[in-house]
């Protein structure tokens, strides 16, 4: 993605919107929001040239708290909306933000195809294994048996492994972040934005209100950084580390270069385009 070159370096505060976040105190999403600000300022984007697309859920409120252009869509549909934006504004960086219900339940059908298209966006999933806005049902990333206030009998199905899902679908940038490591997360997001293609960052973002198991402490204990010598071009290694349940690794698992959605659109256009009316007149000629 292109970055806008300006003399003055923008600061984190330049990306903050007028609205204050509505999240519960202690929510992991605060850390993600700060990481987004940091990543945008690393790129020094002008806020007017950034579009943040989201779905529905606590985390999907994020665009409201920024000064970028935003599209708060409907549940599970952030991916197609982002594709439509990129199809007509291929030079404008697009960040997609949302939760695990959005990405892996109602929207998983779209996620797979956005990945297949290699849509050039950065998608940060704030993963807390529960639905917060609807008061705490378990989501597809909840471990089987996880009991919550609204799912007292416990999650009935095994959890989706988002990284394996993305890798198996051909994702060209697969990473895992953690909201309580904002510097590393900001770095992943900045690299995801710079990546030419679909950057997928599954991010642990604990819900202090409805998930009493997968807390900040839980993830601090359960996670470890990928080894320093880890090679993110090695697909098999990525699969192997993504499958690990103990520890859960943080960092960039995989990155590859593939033609993007935007490349396809660009290549599909003739070198010389015509005005709409000229094209229509020509077609009329052929039909007479």
């Amino acid at each position, binding site marked *: 993605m292109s970055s806008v070159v300006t003399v003055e370096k923008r600061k984190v505060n330049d990306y903050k919107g007028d609205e204050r976040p509505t999240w519960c105190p202690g929510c992991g999403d605060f850390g993600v929001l700060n990481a987004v600000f940091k990543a945008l300022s690393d790129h020094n984007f002008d806020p007017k040239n950034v579009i943040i*697309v989201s779905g529905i859920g606590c985390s999907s409120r994020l665009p409201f708290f920024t000064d970028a252009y935003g599209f708060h869509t409907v549940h599970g549909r952030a991916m197609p909306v*982002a594709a*439509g934006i990129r199809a*007509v504004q291929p030079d404008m960086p697009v960040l997609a933000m949302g939760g695990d219900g959005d990405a892996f339940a109602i929207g998983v059908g779209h996620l797979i195809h956005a990945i297949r298209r290699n849509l050039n966006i950065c998608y940060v999933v704030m993963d807390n294994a529960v639905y917060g806005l609807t008061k705490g049902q378990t989501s597809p990333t909840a471990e089987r048996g996880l009991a919550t206030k609204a799912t007292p009998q416990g999650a009935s199905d095994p959890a989706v492994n988002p990284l394996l899902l993305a890798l198996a679908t051909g994702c060209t940038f697969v990473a895992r972040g953690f909201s309580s490591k904002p510097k590393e997360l900001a770095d992943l997001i900045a690299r995801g934005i710079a990546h030419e293609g679909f950057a997928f960052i599954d991010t642990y973002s604990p819900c202090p209100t409805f998930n009493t198991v997968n807390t900040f402490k839980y993830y601090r204990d359960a996670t470890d950084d990928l080894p320093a010598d880890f090679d993110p071009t090695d697909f098999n290694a990525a699969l192997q580390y993504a499958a690990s349940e103990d520890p859960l690794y943080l960092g960039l698992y995989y990155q590859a270069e593939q033609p993007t959605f935007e490349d396809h659109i660009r290549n599909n256009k003739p070198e010389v385009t015509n005005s709409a009316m000229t094209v*229509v007149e020509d*077609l009329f000629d052929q039909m*007479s």
Partner: protein
Amino acid sequence: MTRNDLVIRVAGEAGEGIVSTGQLLTQAALRGGFHVLTYSQPPSEIKGGHAFYQIRLSADRSYSKGDSVDILLAFNQEAYDRNAAETKDDGLLVYDPSEVTPSADSHFVQVEFPLNDIAKNQLKFPIAKNVVAVGALAELFDLPTKHLDSLIEERWLRKGEAVVQKNLDALRAGIDYVIEHVPQRDRFALYPEKSHAGEIVVSGSEAIGLGAIAAGCSFMAGYPITPASDIKEFLEIHLPKTGGHALQAEDELAAIGMVLGASYAGSKAMTATSGPGFSLMIEMLGLAAMAELPCVIVDAQRAGPSTGMPTRHEQGDLYQAAFAGHGECPRIVLAPTSVRDCFYQTVNAFNLAEKYQTPVVLLGDTLLNVRSESVPRPILNEVKVVDRLLFSENGNGVGNEVGRMNGEYNRYVLTENGVSPMSIPGQEGGQYIATGLEHNEEGLHRYDEATHTIMTQKRFRKLERAAHEAPEGDRFGDPEAEIGILTWGSTVGSVIEVIRQAEQEGLKLDMLAPRMLMPLPDHEIRPFVESKRVIIIPEVNYVGQFANMITSQYPRDYVRINIFGGMPFRVDWLLEKIREEVAQYV
């Protein structure tokens, strides 16, 4: 046999060249000066199966497919067996004796034509059977062959001179056979009285695609579905020529999502689907209405519910188009009344969508979308294109005046007509969040009573304004007639022919077909319903969806005529029905 209004049906196995035979004859007839209107029935099966392509040739403009067949070209026995009943008793049967044995008591004028033998043995070019047939039919009807020669050159030139020559030979073989073997050919000759040369042959789906390009559409996303896929395929080929793009999404949810993304990002955008796909789009129809994003959704209706009869005709989606949605979801619904009108109403759909920042549903159907027709070539410099009102960051322009509140841009600022200037990502100072949540003028989500009240009013105010700008309804008949016919969409074609025939019998009828069905244009409908003694509402659905909408808004007695078998109205049947109904009131 009427010499200046003939229905020709080419029938056989799908994939046998039925469609290409039909298309070549259609274009040749157009260049010969006839009006042409086609009707086809593809098989629902994947491969093979019975199919036909029907062409109505007439000197005057025709409006319906024609009730029965004058000339049947049967490629095989099944084609004969299935179509003989619809062929007039004194009709002409053209058939290959190696494939078809007509029944012994057939009244048809019969012309044997050894298509297979000529193509296989004489020409050694079996796949040219259909071109041989075109040559034979053209000679029978005395269509000028020069048109066919040039059509064959245009069609096969890309494959090289040799292929063109082989097809020209096939054409010639068909012509020669008829000259040698069919005596008294002037029995069949056709004489156009008015020239329709210079018109274009276009299908409803193509007309929609052309209208979209002319209106400035630069993005289209769709998902394959009968009978709307043609629109996507047309735009995939032609939209890039203007710098635009059309693509296939993973489903209809994604298609409309992409359209809204593109619209938000500043493009005129559309999708095209049929009833089942439109059902999937309803969720984001609500988002489009709430976030006030212009978009055009084509619903090419087919017989339902559910998968129903994908290749059959029905006007069953009017309720869905007009009312589907959660909460109170304003939208505009337009219904073109002919193939040519598909072009103009698509332009209007974009214009209204952009002007009022609202979804517009364009209701096509199997009959309109699939058939090709010769239509007067639209005059493009008379086509008015409307763009959305934009926020202007530099202080010039209308958008700036109304878009700013206390020095800040407000995306949903309240205005007299409900339209607020939009900003496009990248515009300085134009940042806002498009959202499906209720929101204040700034675009920030708010759930208070006052906000929901004034914003609901704002969204519906736009519709009230749009009703005054409805494209003029389709009128036909005698404006003084006491008997009115109120109808919509493609049923207009049958109704126009009914009115013409009724007039010859001294029965005066007057038709109004509003082109905007939601909101209903009161200034058109009220005077009509208040001035007619009897009003008949024919439509192709069971419950009378349009009749119910009209009755609830304009209560009085209406005569409903409904069919729902998957076919359009036959003109003779509808006229008879109207005669019966009228008799009760006289």
